[in-house]
């Protein structure tokens, strides 16, 4: 068994930042990650970091843009925390040596991004995430923080009181991918989940293969609710064949979208008469698909993004990486021809419910980054707001987990007297497909149970589960279930959603759950058994996909990235609230908590979003 004060699961931007902060706060900190840190998906982020750095800009404008972009589903205390702390955190990265793009006077450059009233996106070429990830990993190396890389976290170790707010998280069970060893990791102070997005729940995604929602699913099963899962961002510019992302920076620099008629459709058809291509992402993604649906798409699938007019110098200076991506993955030379693009699953606005300090309702369990929902992005995330979220809330979670007092949070978590129950009738009984409980439940009995005893039992359970999976020599393989699940989500829970479609998806997810009971691992080896690891991940994807579809079903309105055919209006009277789904012994329990629109100096009044 390993023991540390703070255990950070995941080593992308949020995980590294949390680990550095916990270490600086004096805690013995370790990172456990299924990838080596520099392989984390943060490295694929291209665009930049929003931070009000210049004169004429200020954090209140940033907060306002973010609230508007969120379609008034962001919680003001979280949004304002983000906007206030982003400048300091961005400057901190600069002082750690991050190679930002520069102006002639040597200051860091900033550029316009969609939905921003000021060009406040700080960037490093079109590879900002790569530099951010490496810069922070360098700081982890500098501080000598212990990293357990290629250790897959299988489950959390949590007590199992009836009320999740009485539960405590004592650590995690890890699987050393290289050797097959299963070991407990005891966390004396806290566990910070920073496991990234769940994009692999979809077939066409910009997300890495590793983005399987492991943290979401583990926290969910341990009793922390998942919040606003229906809000999935579809990025307007991903390459059609692979889902590889073409940065919003292209449009930020002046790139233009054309349909098959050569029309600049964002203006031509009135999708966004003021901002055009730089409207917020949900608006542009819908516009593109509408063009395709109305027969003005190219090959009935995509539209064109043109940056030729920017000129080679500017492209090479600010978007060089995009040229390589278009060339390598689509065979298109962006200097001489437009690039094919279509919307692709990109980001989950929702996630594990946490407060401004990164804490869930389960004591000792934290989450930060894309796997968490504070909520700063509400119904739609603005481009350039993911990276500041990682560093601002990663740092806060790390400090709080290490025992620093950050003051009482304004955002509430868990089931309390401010929540409202749901009584929607579901097409299927989702979660309850009699999964063998030993593998399904993260929690463990006994209030008085000692952490060490609990950890040992949890390790034993995972060893048994692995033995069961590997002893079977027939059944169904994870890849079959996974691709069925991904296809269903892309077919029915995509940019455009209907009640019938979402119900169909739920029925398929239920089938996946049932099939999963016969899943088996064909690879008999204990050495680097990715078959086994992916079998675990597939289980997590089923849980996460189910919450996305459930959220999409119950929210019968049109807000942010969530569009429903039968409900073409934002219903502020009814829906200025977060959807929360908690795992009630395998049965999803849906409830709601009102959104907080009162900020420090003002209340954000919902207005029509026009760009």
């Amino acid at each position, binding site marked *: 068994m390993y023991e540390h004060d703070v255990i950070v699961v995941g080593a992308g931007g949020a995980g590294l930042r949390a680990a550095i902060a916990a270490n600086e706060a004096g805690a013995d900190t370790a990172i456990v990650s299924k*990838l*080596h840190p*520099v*392989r984390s*998906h943060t*490295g*694929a982020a291209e665009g930049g970091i929003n931070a009000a*750095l210049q004169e004429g800009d200020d954090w209140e404008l940033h907060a306002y843009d973010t609230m508007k972009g969120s379609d008034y589903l962001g919680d003001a205390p979280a949004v304002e925390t983000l906007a206030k702390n982003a*400048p*300091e955190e961005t*400057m*901190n990265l*600069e*002082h*750690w*040596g991050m*190679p*930002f*793009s*520069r*102006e*002639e*006077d*040597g*200051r*860091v450059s900033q550029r316009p991004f969609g939905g921003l009233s000021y060009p406040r996106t700080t960037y490093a070429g079109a*590879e900002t995430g*790569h*530099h951010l990830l490496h*810069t922070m990993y*360098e*700081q982890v*190396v500098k501080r000598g923080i212990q990293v357990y890389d290629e250790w897959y976290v299988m489950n959390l170790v949590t007590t199992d009181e009836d009320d999740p707010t009485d539960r405590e998280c004592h650590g995690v069970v890890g699987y050393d991918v290289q050797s097959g060893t299963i070991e407990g990791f005891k966390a004396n102070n806290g566990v910070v989940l920073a496991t990234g997005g769940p994009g692999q729940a979809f077939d066409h995604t910009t997300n*890495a*293969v*590793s983005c399987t929602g492991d943290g979401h699913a583990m926290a969910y099963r341990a009793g922390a609710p998942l919040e606003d899962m229906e809000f999935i961002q579809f990025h307007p510019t991903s390459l059609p*064949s*692979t*889902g*590889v992302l073409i940065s919003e920076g292209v449009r930020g620099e002046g790139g233009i979208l054309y349909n098959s008629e050569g029309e600049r459709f964002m203006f031509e058809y009135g999708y966004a008469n003021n901002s055009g291509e730089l409207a917020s992402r949900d608006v542009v993604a819908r516009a593109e698909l509408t063009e395709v649906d109305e027969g003005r798409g190219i090959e009935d699938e995509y539209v064109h993004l043109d940056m030729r007019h920017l000129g080679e110098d500017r492209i090479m200076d600010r978007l060089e990486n995009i040229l*390589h*991506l278009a060339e*390598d*993955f*689509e*065979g298109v030379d962006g200097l001489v021809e437009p690039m094919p693009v279509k919307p692709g699953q990109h980001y989950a606005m929702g996630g594990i419910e946490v407060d401004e300090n990164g804490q869930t309702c389960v004591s000792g369990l934290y989450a930060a980054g894309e796997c968490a929902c504070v909520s700063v992005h509400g119904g739609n995330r603005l481009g350039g707001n993911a990276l500041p979220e990682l560093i601002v809330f990663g740092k806060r979670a790390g400090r709080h987990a290490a025992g620093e007092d950050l003051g009482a949070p304004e955002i509430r978590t868990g089931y309390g007297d401010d929540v409202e129950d749901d009584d929607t009738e579901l097409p299927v009984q989702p979660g309850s497909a009699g999964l063998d409980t030993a593998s399904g439940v993260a929690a463990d009995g006994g209030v008085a149970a000692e952490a060490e005893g609990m950890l040992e039992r949890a390790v034993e359970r995972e060893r048994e589960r692995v033995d069961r999976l590997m002893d079977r020599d027939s059944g169904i*393989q994870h*890849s079959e279930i996974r*691709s069925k699940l991904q296809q269903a989500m892309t077919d029915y829970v995509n940019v455009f959603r209907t009640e019938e479609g979402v119900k169909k998806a739920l029925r398929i997810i239920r089938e996946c759950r049932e099939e999963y009971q016969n899943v088996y*691992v*064909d*690879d*008999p*080896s*204990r*050495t*680097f*058994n*990715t*078959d086994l690891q992916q079998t675990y991940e597939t289980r997590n994807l089923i849980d996460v996909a189910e919450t996305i579809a459930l959220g999409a079903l119950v929210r019968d309105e049109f807000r942010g990235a969530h569009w429903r055919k039968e409900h073409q209006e934002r219903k502020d009277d009814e829906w200025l609230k977060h959807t929360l789904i908690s795992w009630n012994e395998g049965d999803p329990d849906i409830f709601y908590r009102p959104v907080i629109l009162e900020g420090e100096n003002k209340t954000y009044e919902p207005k029509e979003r026009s760009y």
Partner: protein
Amino acid sequence: MSTQQQQQEPESQESPQDPEMKGTESPQQERLREKQEGMVDDHAEKEAEAEGETVHIKVFRYDPEVAAKQEPRFDDFHVPFEKGMTVLDAVMYARDEFDSSLTFRHSCRQAVCGSDAFFVNGKQRLGCKTQISDLEQPVRIEPLPHQEVVKDLVVDMDHFYDQMHAVEPYFQDEDTPDPADLEEQRQSPENREKIKMSSRCIWCGACMSSCNIAAGDNKYLGPAAINKAYKFAMDDRESEAIKEHRLRILEQEHGVWRCQTQFSCTEVCPKDIPLTEHIQELKREAVKKNLKFW
């Protein structure tokens, strides 16, 4: 990149494994075929799909724990071809459809996580950014040479990481700015441009694997680590004193002077980093520094 580098192309590298191209079906694939032969329903469709154009890949297999794989060998897979298919796509298809024990690292599929560097038709390449249509068939896919094979295409990266860490790869001037003073350090666009290419390294290990010197001298820092040091040493934001400290690390016995300018690292770098040039520049810097103190 430049023609000069192409002229310097290294002699063909030997595979660390048995070069014999003997193909066998993997036990899992064999089992799958038997299953398919015994069943007519949905498998018939799969085979029908596979009747179109296929790509023949030969994949290196080894697993220290599984009796049938303890002796290294190549397995053959015939994967349905699709336009735009990469080497990574092909091995993923083989894994998901034919043999789930086929093991390799991969994650981002867009040439930035650096985890899927393989030895493809005798050259270090990233699986995800290598179009299969550009390669001669059968496409031979092996683990990176000169690194210990853990299983199939997975190699032990520990030594590579150790060398990266050995150059003190972190900014060394004062840690954090005064929070009250939200000012960045100034850096000219020219200086940023100078370090730009070096900062693109994704730690894939292709360069190290291609380097004959690194293969023979385990202590040699190697092109990736030296390039990492270059990024810091050339960054004007770090002080002169720290630059000297960095050069001292680099001019040690197993540092920059080991490089014999064979350009193999530059040749294989998937991010087009001029690694050899960077190493030469550091040699010049080291000489200049020494002259100053003599």
